[in-house]
Structures are given as structure tokens and as C-alpha cells.
């Protein structure tokens, strides 16, 4: 599953890059691009004068060789200064021009941010979902579902600035506006919350539906017939079964958090992979952009695989050969 998916993603990104409107040679040369001799020279240096198939095979070779190529900024182009430089946040130390180093370095930051968002989601969204299900059709239920709908309906680029205004300007709980200072710094709190609000509704709903479905099951009645306290009936007898559909959503959400934190990273000025994607797309730094896309595809495939493996942990009937 993994290899064909990756090859197809590579083909698509490469084709888009090849036929796309952004000319890497121009990106490297900047103002000088009108000089035809210079242009041809750089084009040859980048290997862009070769036919499509050769270029693609060469690209595949580079990727599978584990090198992933070089950023155009390595060729002394403007890419690094014009767009990438603008986005440099506090604590960003990306001086390397190797695509792999750039992607992995940025991904580490995004992963830390996503980790907190995921913790926030699993703790709060699942708790709220269980509460809503147990208090089904009461005010508590309606309040939880409604507030989740509201939280998830407001886009990150609205919630983010609003939170910044409240917690940085009005009530100065946080001193700095953005940037990244490691996952245990206070700067990580707000972006993680904003990142978690988007998928909140899905998880709350999914958990609620899962628990509601289990509520009427015979084995829940048996647990009650044993005189078990309600808290243990929920925790031991209902939660694991109810979590199976939630796990599916959490898998999708994790991929989404890792690959789609574009807005949040932009708003909070966090040098994660989302920001790298925006920067390289705007500066025409193709090798890096394609690396980002490819890596994101890899993340999605890997997370899906992990999700499947985790089913076995939840459901004892699932076995792997």
C-alpha cells in the first residue's frame, strides 16, 4: 500500500511542478532572468533542460536514495530571502538547504504542536462526548453539542487572532504574540488550542454517538446488574467499544493536524511544516515544496496504518497475521 501511494503522489506533485506556472529558474535568478545566457546556464545546472521522464526518474532516484535534493536557495537564489526569510519566527534555526533537513526540522515543530492539540482533543472532546451521551437529551447534552458546533464553525484565522487579542493584549497571560520556543513553552498553549477547536465537533459527536449506541447493549445491563458504579460501567464496559469509531476519526484528525496546520502556523508565526509549505509555494522553491507534499502524503499513509494497528488494542477480536 505504502509504495504505490507514494509513487503516485510523487508523480502528481512532480507533474504539477513541471507544468505549473512557477518557473524555478526565474525563482533562482530573480531580476537577472532576462539574461538569456544566464537563464540557460542555470536551467542546465538545475537539470531542467532534460525531458520530463528523465527528470522524473532522476527525482525518484534522489528521493528513494534518501537525499531529497537541495533547496533552490542553495543555488544562491532569492528564494531563501524573499519569502522564507519573512517567515522566520523566534527560535527558527533552519540554515540547512537540504530538503530533507528542512522538512524534518519543520515537521518536528508541527508534530509537537499537533501532539498538544491531540492531547487536548482526546482529553476534552472525549470527556465532553461521554458526558453528552450519559446526559443524553438534557440541557447538558445540548450545551455541549451546541458549543462544539460553534467552536468548530469559527475558522482558525478568526479564533486565533481573537484569542491573541484577549490573552496577549487585554489580559496579558502570554507575553509574546507568536513564534516557537519548544513544546513546553507557554507559546505552545494558544496555537494548540486553536488547532484543536477545528476537529473538536467531530470527536465530540463521534464519542457521543458511540456511547449512546453502547448504552442500550445487553452487556451494559449486565454490568449494572452486577451493581457496578456508573462511572466504572462507562469506563470499563462502554468506553473501549465506543472508542472504535472515534479512533478512526482521531486518525484522520491526526493526519489533518500534521499536514493542515497552515493557518495556525501562519497566525502564530510558528515555523512548522505548514508555514514551510506556504513559503516555498510562494517563493517557487520546488524541491522543498515537493518534499513537503510528499512527506505529508507519507504522514497520512503512516497514520492510517497506525490507526489500523491501534484497533487491535481496543478490540480484542481484531488480530493481525
Amino acid at each position, binding site marked *: 500500500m505504502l509504495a504505490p501511494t507514494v509513487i503516485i503522489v510523487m508523480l502528481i506533485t512532480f507533474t504539477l511542478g513541471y507544468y505549473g506556472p512557477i518557473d524555478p529558474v526565474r525563482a533562482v535568478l530573480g531580476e537577472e532572468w532576462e539574461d538569456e545566457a544566464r537563464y540557460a546556464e542555470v536551467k542546465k545546472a538545475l537539470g531542467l533542460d532534460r525531458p520530463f521522464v528523465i527528470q522524473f526518474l532522476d527525482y525518484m532516484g534522489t528521493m528513494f536514495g534518501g537525499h531529497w535534493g537541495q533547496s533552490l536557495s542553495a543555488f544562491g537564489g532569492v528564494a531563501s530571502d524573499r519569502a522564507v526569510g519573512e517567515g522566520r519566527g523566534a527560535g527558527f534555526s533552519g540554515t540547512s538547504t537540504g530538503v530533507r533537513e528542512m522538512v524534518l526540522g519543520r515537521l518536528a515543530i508541527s508534530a509537537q504542536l499537533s501532539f498538544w492539540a491531540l492531547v487536548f482533543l482526546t482529553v476534552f472532546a472525549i470527556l465532553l462526548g461521554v458526558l453528552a451521551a450519559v446526559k443524553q437529551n438534557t440541557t447538558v447534552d445540548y450545551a455541549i453539542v451546541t458549543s462544539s458546533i460553534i467552536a468548530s464553525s469559527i475558522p482558525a484565522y478568526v479564533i486565533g487572532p481573537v484569542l491573541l487579542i484577549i490573552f496577549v493584549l487585554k489580559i496579558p497571560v502570554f507575553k509574546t504574540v507568536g513564534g516557537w520556543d519548544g513544546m513546553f513553552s507557554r507559546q505552545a498553549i494558544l496555537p494548540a488550542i486553536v488547532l484543536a477547536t477545528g476537529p473538536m465537533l467531530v470527536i465530540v459527536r463521534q464519542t457521543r454517538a458511540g456511547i449512546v449506541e453502547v448504552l*442500550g*447493549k*445487553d*452487556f451494559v*445491563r*449486565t*454490568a*449494572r*446488574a*452486577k*451493581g*457496578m*458504579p456508573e462511572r*466504572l460501567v462507562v469506563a*470499563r*464496559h462502554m468506553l*473501549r*467499544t465506543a472508542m472504535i469509531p472515534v479512533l478512526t476519526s482521531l486518525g484522520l484528525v491526526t493526519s489533518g493536524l500534521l499536514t493542515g496546520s497552515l493557518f495556525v502556523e501562519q497566525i502564530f508565526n510558528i515555523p512548522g511544516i505548514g508555514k514551510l509549505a506556504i513559503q516555498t509555494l510562494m517563493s517557487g522553491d520546488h524541491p522543498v515544496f515537493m518534499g513537503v507534499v510528499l512527506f505529508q502524503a507519507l504522514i497520512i499513509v503512516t497514520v492510517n496504518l497506525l490507526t489500523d494497528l491501534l484497533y487491535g488494542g*481496543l*478490540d*480484542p*477480536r481484531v488480530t493481525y497475521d
Partner: protein
Amino acid sequence: MATDTSSQPEIPLTGGAAPDRKPLLRIHELHTQFETKQGTVRAVDGLSLDLYEGEVLGLVGESGCGKTMTALSIMGLLPGNGQAVAGEINFEGKNLLQCSGEEMKKIRGARIAMVFQEPMTALTPTMTIGRQISEAMEIHLALGREEARERALELLDHVGIPSPRARFDNYIHQFSGGMRQRVMIAIAFSCQPRLLLADEPTTALDVTVQAQILDLIKHLAQEAGMTALFITHDMGIVAGSCDRVAVMYAGRMVEIGPVDDVLLNPRHPYTQGLLGSVPSLESKPGDRLYSISGLPPDLVSLPTGCKFWLRCPLADDRCREDEPELEQYGQSQAACWKVMPPRDVAA
């Protein structure tokens, strides 16, 4: 509903139980209802029943006659919006219908246990069977996790699960139907309750396993001096396992008495019908099996008079208008205007 509650006997008749026995559970005029869009469903409609210490009482009747709802009313585990709206269920000096949720949790599992019909769905699929047995003991007997585990292993051995240690951490899907019901029984007996409610414990099992499971429950109940209520529609189980039998129809009792008496001299035409639909050794191949014609009445709009008259071959005007009360006939009681004279009297 034409039941006139004031004319019920003040002191419930013993219904064939030995007079020196003390009742452990007294159900008096229990009314359990469900509200539906079609109207109020009277699942249990004025049922009075005494269970005496140490006896095994069979509760029989067709599907939907209120047997299971009676048991779930005792447990306080009625599904949906089901509610015991009137009556009393007295057990160990308490009216269970007035117990708080906390009080009921101390009774459920500890004093009254229930074995359910379908062992596949009645056990949690995501929890090891060992934990499902031991967790109740941790709560009710205040055992530590290790002690409870040891007790659970003993119980598994006692209910006939081979190599309990290896099986303790298994899940329910790794067990056969009979084994699952053994686990269910181990759970029910784990906290040594006084009363066992067994709701069709063998219906979902292979015929060959049914007898084993019944023997196991009987044996364990006798060993512990436990009182048991067997809910079933199988007259064979009643004949083989019970001391007394109560026959329910449309949420009320129509006949109760010692098993031998009721099976040999059924007074109520419904009981006769139930017994008639059991194939006997005398019946010849090709004989049609007797069946009671028609369907049980709609519990939302019950007929006046005797609830069975629509299907009763003997019904007359009186049956259609007045509802009969339980009356003593020999060792048993029946609620019928057309009671047959007991065979031994007639002979």
C-alpha cells in the same frame, strides 16, 4: 383495565409452598408500564408473587407476557422509559421500588443476581472474562484486586471452565455458548447473593448444553441455599428444575402451584394450552402439535374480563366481562371462571 385491587386477598396465599417457609421476596400488586406513542404498555399488570427461602420457582408464559419485565423490575433495570408505577417489591425488609440508586447498587449483584438469556451479547466483548467476574467482588466484598482474582479463578474452576488460569485473560469471543453462560453464572454467584434471577438461561444454547447449564445452576443454588426464579417458556425445565411454577399471561398471574400439581392438573385453560403444545412420547408421528390459537393481547388496549378469553375455547359472557381472581384449588391457585376439577377429585 378492570382489575379491582381492593378485592385481592389481603394475605397472599402461599400458592402451594410449604407453610413453614418464610418469604424472601414479596411482590405485591406490581404494575410496570412503558409509555409509547401508541399508549401505555402494561407489561406487568398487578402481579403478586412470593418467593420462599430456598425454593426454585419457575415463571412461565409466552414471549411478551411480562416475565422478563418482572425480573427487571426487581433489579431496577427496566429499559427505556419503563417504570414500576405501583406496587411493592419487598426484599430483606426493604421495598426495592423505593430504594435509592445507591441502595440498589448495593443490592444488585450482592444480594440479588441475574443471569441473562444471551451470553454472547450479555458479556462485555472488550474486557477479559476474569476481570468481568472479579470486578463485582472488588466492589461488593471489598476484596483487593489479587484476592478477587484468586476468587474468580476458584469460581471459574467451580463452574467447570477447564484451566482457569489460562482462561482468565481470554475474551468472550474465544468461548463457546455454553462456556459463556458458565462465565455468566460465575459472575452471578461471585458475591453469594440470596436471590438468583435466571432469565431463560439456556434458551440460546445447544440442547446438549442446556441440561449441563441447568444442573450447574441448580447445584450451585442448592449448595449456597439460594432462592431462584427461573424465567422460561420450557415446560421441561420447569418439570426438571423447579419446586413451584407460576404461569403468567398478559402481565398477570393466571396459575401458581407446586410443579407436580400444576403439570398434572392444570386448572387454567392457558396452562393446559401451554402443556398441550409440548410434544409427548404418546403422540404419533404426523400428529399435529397442539397450539393455542391467536396471539397474546395488545398490552396497550387489554380486553375487559379475563385477558385470555379471546383465545380460550371455554370462554362465555362472564369471562368477557368479569376478570377472575386467583382462587385456591387443591394445592394450587388459578384465576379462571372455568376451572377444571382436579383429576384426583374427579376420579
